[in-house]
Structures are given as structure tokens and as C-alpha cells.
């Protein structure tokens, strides 16, 4: 019982580390998590934004962002889409 970790506690533990956020649709965001609120809106630093298109992944670099939590689907602590894409090694 004592060992149970609530989902938002897991997110809280990720503060200060890199996190990979997969949005609903074709967008992904990777950055250093600075903070979040009850909607999981997130403040991220040193951000790379990816947009998945038919041609491949479009990249965009940003300094600091407030990401809207409304379309967040999956969050992967320490994740990196470039390291775990289907074409390269899939172990993570």
C-alpha cells in the first residue's frame, strides 16, 4: 500500500528532467520539465517540437514554453523520439 505512486506524483518526480510529451494528433514535444498544474499544462525549457508529416519529422527549437495540457496524450520521462523511432533500435 505504501509503495503506491499516484500518476501525478510520477509527473512531479520528473520535474527538472527531460520529458517526451506525445500529443493527440501528430505533434510531439521534448523538453526539460519545470512545472505543471492540475490540468497538466506544463512549463518546459529547451524545447524541441516535432510535427509528424508524411515526409518525416519536422523539428522546431524553442527556448521556454507553456504547453496546453488539453491535447496531451502520453508522457515519457527521459524519452527521446529520435532514439526510439521504429526504424532504429526500439529498446528503451
Amino acid at each position, binding site marked *: 500500500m505504501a509503495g503506491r505512486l499516484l500518476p501525478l*506524483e510520477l509527473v*512531479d*518526480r520528473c*520535474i*527538472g528532467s527531460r520529458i517526451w510529451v506525445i*500529443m493527440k*494528433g501528430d*505533434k510531439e*514535444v521534448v523538453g526539460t520539465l*519545470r*512545472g*505543471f*498544474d492540475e490540468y497538466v*499544462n*506544463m*512549463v518546459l525549457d529547451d*524545447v524541441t*517540437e516535432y*510535427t509528424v508529416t508524411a515526409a518525416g519529422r519536422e523539428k522546431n527549437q*524553442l*527556448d*521556454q*514554453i*507553456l*504547453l*496546453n495540457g*488539453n*491535447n496531451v496524450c502520453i508522457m515519457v520521462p527521459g524519452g527521446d523520439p529520435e532514439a526510439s523511432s521504429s526504424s532504429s533500435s526500439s529498446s528503451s
Partner: protein
Amino acid sequence: MSEQATETKKTTTTTTTGKAKYQPSDFLKAVLGRPVIVKLNSGVSYRGILACLDGYMNIAMEQTEEYDDGQLKAKYGDCFIRGNNVHYISTIKRR
């Protein structure tokens, strides 16, 4: 820029793990009146001065430039963006 850094230090709280936490509300306070890029879910982005915003992420901007696919499409003196369309609000690095 250094002025903004001291401002953020004042408003940071700490988490249970003892790390400094910089919450969305702190970010919003810090970017008010500063140049930002607001990207919508449609992919269109708006670059301008953040005049005002609320908890829904409704945004009022000044000197707004509309970019679609990296191309400047339009300019607006003032504009209002309804919060449900916002993907992110980004700071602009000083050059």
C-alpha cells in the same frame, strides 16, 4: 533578461522532492507584456506582445504577426485568441 530571472526566483516553490517548481501561473506572470509566439493546434502561429491573458489561455496580443508554414500571412494591431485553440505559448529569445 536578468530582471526576468530574478522575478522567477521569487515565485518558485519547491516540490515534495525538494526541486524548484516553476508553475504555469509563474510563467504567465513572467511573460506578460513580453514578446511571445503563440502556436495554435491548427499549426498557425502568432508572434507579438502578450497584452493580457486568463486561466482559459484566452489571449490578447499587440503588434501581432500571423505565420503559416513559416510565411508571414497577416499583421494585426490587436488580436484576441480564444484559449481552446492554443497549443503552446513560447518566449522569444532576445537577440
